[in-house]
């Protein structure tokens, strides 16, 4: 075990391993908040772990919890989750070569952070090693975080008195801020959020978030580059 770790360190480098460890730790904390928030919203204590086992995609899991907690139906929550996870389709194409020897396992573990670490490596063997190392560590940290968070969540009976209802949007905000620094994301996101908020008093719960996708028209209406003639 020890020699395997040493060879991993030789092949990936100490700096990359340290970066991976830091990301895994952060993901463990997000997993713990996911578990705690989901259980304190009224889900059974096993629900966060079951979701993580079947889905293993944090953003869609948070979305599912949020839509159901707002009173939305399971169908609306699953639909929202499937829309958010559509971004994994291009990930799969980008990493097709990388996971060739373990296609099913590689696809199951294909989360954002592992994809980012993998694609950052140029050399194929190093890319494969970085992807699987990061993905497996993330998987373990996320699950451990989920269980600990869910157990902590059962101890909290009054969500509002502890301010946990504010923790949920704050988690999302902290995770989304880096993406919102880019103007191409910011404009559609703000327009979409405004539409969703305006529709909230009118539509059944769960649907307003889906209507936020109209914010994407901002991108479509952007003037096209003139065709070369």
């Amino acid at each position, binding site marked *: 075990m020890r020699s395997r770790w040493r060879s991993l360190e030789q092949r990936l480098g100490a700096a990359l391993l340290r970066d991976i460890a830091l990301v895994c730790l952060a993901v463990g904390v997000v997993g713990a908040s996911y578990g705690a928030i989901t259980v304190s919203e009224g889900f059974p204590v096993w629900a966060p772990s079951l979701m993580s086992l079947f889905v293993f995609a944090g953003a869609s899991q948070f979305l599912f919890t949020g839509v159901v907690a707002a009173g939305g139906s399971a169908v609306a929550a699953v639909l929202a989750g499937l829309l958010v996870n559509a971004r994994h389709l291009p990930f799969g194409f*980008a990493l097709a070569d990388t996971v060739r020897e373990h296609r099913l396992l590689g696809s199951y573990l294909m989360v954002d952070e592992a994809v980012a670490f993998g694609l950052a490596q140029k050399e194929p063997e190093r890319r494969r090693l970085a992807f699987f190392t990061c993905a497996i560590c993330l998987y373990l940290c996320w699950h451990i975080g989920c269980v600990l968070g869910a157990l902590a969540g059962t101890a909290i009976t009054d969500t509002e008195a502890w301010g946990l209802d504010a923790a949920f949007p704050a988690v999302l905000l902290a995770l989304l801020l880096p993406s919102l620094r880019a103007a191409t994301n910011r404009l559609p996101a703000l327009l979409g959020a405004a539409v969703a908020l305006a529709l909230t008093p009118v539509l059944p719960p769960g649907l307003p978030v889906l209507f936020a996708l109209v914010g994407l028209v901002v991108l479509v209406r952007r003037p096209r580059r003139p065709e070369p003639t």
Partner: protein
Amino acid sequence: MISGGAIVVSAAVLGAGTFAYRAAGPLLNARFTMKPRTVELMSTAAIVLLVALMVTSTFADGKDLADPARPLGVLVGGVLAWRRAPFVVVVVSAAVTAALVRLVL
């Protein structure tokens, strides 16, 4: 709240769909790449949905307006996140702020 059975079925459907997205590239073994425009649109769509969830869960409680404690908590968390405070600090500050505002009001 939905039933335990509905949670299991939802997890299975969402899980199967997500796996299908992820496995399409590796299983089709296709060498073709997607248009950068499509990739960009998909990732922006994900961000749009999540920001909408963030904003509606900040300001709305079901179909009604949330009490002021929650948006105030999220605001404090947001400012800290903007100033690149650690994740744990952001989340705990948001919760503590909302809890304190409720104690006072």
